[in-house]
């Protein structure tokens, strides 16, 4: 099977054979080619169907963002209102703050997570005892599996004014005054990235670690023979060889840069009002604002806006990647 397909590919890519052939023959060839691919199409079908039903069909609901949605009239029957549902996102004084917070935090998360996870993955690769590799891997993965609500309580145990470890044990030891962490916005641009890193580093590390494991050991042997130091090996072999994975992961994260981890920004600061200047992001703003109104149109508008911006950013990022190295681009 694989053999015939490769031949087909060669055949199709051969301009002399395909494009100069008479039309009738070409159509015939096409049909035959298609027949050969049938088993593959069948294998593709469940995944494709899932994608259609789960990801493409709901897109129809995007029209709600442009409608004054009414249950009686239904989605198609409701009246069009143009961009009125989007107004609330931009008309407010907070529009700048929430956009800035969302972009800066998520941008910083991408850089911080990628750099740290690649570092940890390289370190893991240097450990020779399999038992310890497994052990460390599990330990750094555990936070990823903990729900954000639980994380918020862990953080609270550290930062609470009345019973927190920091205020009751650590700060007095250092001779410092207790701090009302949940009332002081200035500390949160540091607290949130730390928590995010602690929570998601395990996931990224495993992806990069498996990419490193896929590198042929012969490269390192050859490098060692040539007298390359560990640092040189990392710089010249490991990182270049896993860069496709790094680029792919980064592109995927950029697509979601306008969405933020709701748990991290809502649960972890305990929805404390005084912190909004540094913790309010688009998702939390929409949630708080619409909690009472419950307007489906406005909520869809916010989601639509987020995905459009994400989509455009992915296109731009991909374009930049493709300019530099065509093989690493997603599409």
């Amino acid at each position: 099977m694989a053999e015939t397909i490769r031949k087909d590919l060669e055949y199709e890519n051969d301009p002399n054979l395909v494009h100069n052939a008479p039309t009738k023959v070409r159509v015939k060839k096409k049909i035959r080619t298609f027949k050969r691919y049938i088993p593959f199409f069948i294998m593709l079908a469940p995944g494709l169907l899932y994608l259609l039903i789960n990801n493409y069909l709901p897109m129809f609901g995007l029209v709600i963002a442009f409608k004054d949605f009414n249950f009686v009239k239904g989605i198609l029957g409701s009246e069009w209102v143009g961009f009125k549902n989007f107004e609330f996102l931009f008309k407010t004084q907070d529009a700048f703050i929430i956009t800035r917070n969302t972009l800066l935090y998520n941008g910083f998360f991408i850089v911080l997570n990628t750099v740290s996870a690649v570092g940890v993955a390289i370190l893991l690769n240097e450990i020779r005892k399999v038992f310890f590799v497994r052990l460390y891997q599990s330990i750094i993965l555990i936070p990823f599996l903990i729900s954000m609500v639980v994380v918020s309580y862990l953080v609270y145990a550290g930062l609470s004014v009345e019973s927190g470890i920091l205020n009751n044990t650590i700060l007095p030891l250092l001779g410092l005054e207790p701090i009302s962490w949940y009332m002081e916005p200035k500390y949160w641009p540091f607290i949130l990235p730390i928590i995010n890193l602690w929570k998601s580093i395990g996931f990224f590390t495993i992806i990069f670690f498996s990419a490193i494991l896929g590198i042929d050991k012969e490269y390192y042997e050859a490098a060692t023979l040539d007298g390359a130091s560990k640092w040189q090996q990392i710089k010249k072999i490991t990182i270049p060889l896993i860069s496709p994975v790094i680029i792919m992961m980064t592109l995927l994260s950029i697509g979601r840069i306008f969405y933020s981890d709701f748990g991290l920004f809502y649960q972890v600061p305990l929805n404390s009002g005084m912190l909004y200047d540094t913790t309010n992001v688009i998702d939390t703003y929409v949630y708080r604002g619409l909690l009472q109104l419950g307007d489906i149109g406005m909520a869809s508008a916010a989601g639509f806006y987020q995905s459009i911006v994400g989509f455009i950013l992915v296109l731009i990022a991909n374009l930049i990647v493709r300019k530099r190295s065509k093989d690493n681009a997603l599409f």
Partner: protein
Amino acid sequence: MKYFNRLKVLFLATLLLVTACTKNESTTNSSDQSEGSNNGKEETYELVMAFPVFGPVPKDMDKVEAAINKISKEKINATVDLEPISIGAYDQQYNLMLTSNEKLDLLMVSFRTVDGLISKGSLHELDDLLEKYGDGIKQVFEPEYLNAAKHNNKHFIIPNYNEMAESNGLLIPKKYVDDYGIDLSKVTEFKDLEYVFEQIKKNNSDIAPLVPAGVGFSILDHYRWYDSLGDSIGVLPNYDNDLQVVNLYETHEYEEHLNLLRKWYEAGYIMKDAATNQDSQIDLLKSGRGAALISGMKPGIAEDESIKFGMEMVATPLTEAYSTTRNVVGLNWGIPITSENPEKAMQFLDLMFSNEEIARLLHWGIEGEHYVEVSENVIDYPEGVDGSNSGYALNQNWMFGNQFGSGYVWNGTSPKLAQDYKEFNQTAHLSKALGFTFNAEPVRNEYTAVSNVIDQYKLSLETGSVDPDEVLPEFISKLKAAGIDTIIKEKQKQLDEWASHQ
């Protein structure tokens, strides 16, 4: 490959078309059926009734349902399919049922969602049905309260009959009152509380005398001197103010209360973590971290709360009882627009309010199995049964029609609780705007912005956690920038309009 691409597009297009069509078909079908059922021989109709449960779903729900159906089939030729949904998932679940046209005939809606449902047209108008089938309901309510549940002068919902008003007061375990020699007769208004807190702090410096009455609540959430008109964005001070809506956060009284709270916070009378508290008031009091709280009051509150807290509690009211729209429309029954037989739904609703047998089944379960009568009109668990192993320990009698419709009270509560409630409801002061509901739709952009600003400042200010001298002006100016004046103007307009119809 091109051939296949075309195939894909075709497939996608048909799929979209098919889904769009089926949706339309199902709606037309349903309306046909409801017309058909009116003429000709009547079949027994099965009503689907969705309501939230606050604990686990009782395992004998089906038995209770069967017993109810026996009565309802005979009386109105309809059976009911009870659909209990856990409270956490309730809003999502019923919204899904509504949007997907699932069969649903009776729906419990809370004050938070009712305006949205009505403005989106998801609920049936009930005036004619109430006129035709609702005599039992009308008998239970004082007319002013049933009228207060109207929206745009029409009935869309039937509230449950329980406490129709609320006063505010202090709730404190009896042991502290006795041990620390607190004379509660000295406490008649808000500022007198300082004396109570002082006594507690003097005797026990480890405890926070005042804690919030729940996670996410501020102290002032349960102490009001104004009609919040639904959301506290534009209020009526003293429940009257000649129907002139004002900005609560700019009033002198509000500032005074904040200053007092700040003073208490700095003196250590209010829990330090009050603004970010994550523990329920029950946990706080049980673990000895907090001593008292300010809470809403109703008849029998001390007994109710004693059971909840697991220790004897004392309640001291600080305000008189007032009734606002919010008190009347707490949890309500509505008939979704998708219901195929609203007549039967209304008849069942009426039966729930007026039929003692059905009320007993919904409130307490089956006699002998889930409860026994221990003395006249007082019931308790049968022998060997308690809250943990009873098949029907729902305890949500305040959600199914008339809270006292069963004629029973649970052992431990006052046997004359029903009379107390009736008296409480009949003697409560009525807010001048009782019955008014604000529709935020015309000012929704401002509304989202203002909601965010309030979320940002309210909790910190109203727990004394921040200095009002500094933060209150900032709060007010941000509210203005977010457009609170536009909302208040709109509210005033709607209120004037409402008043002209009264």
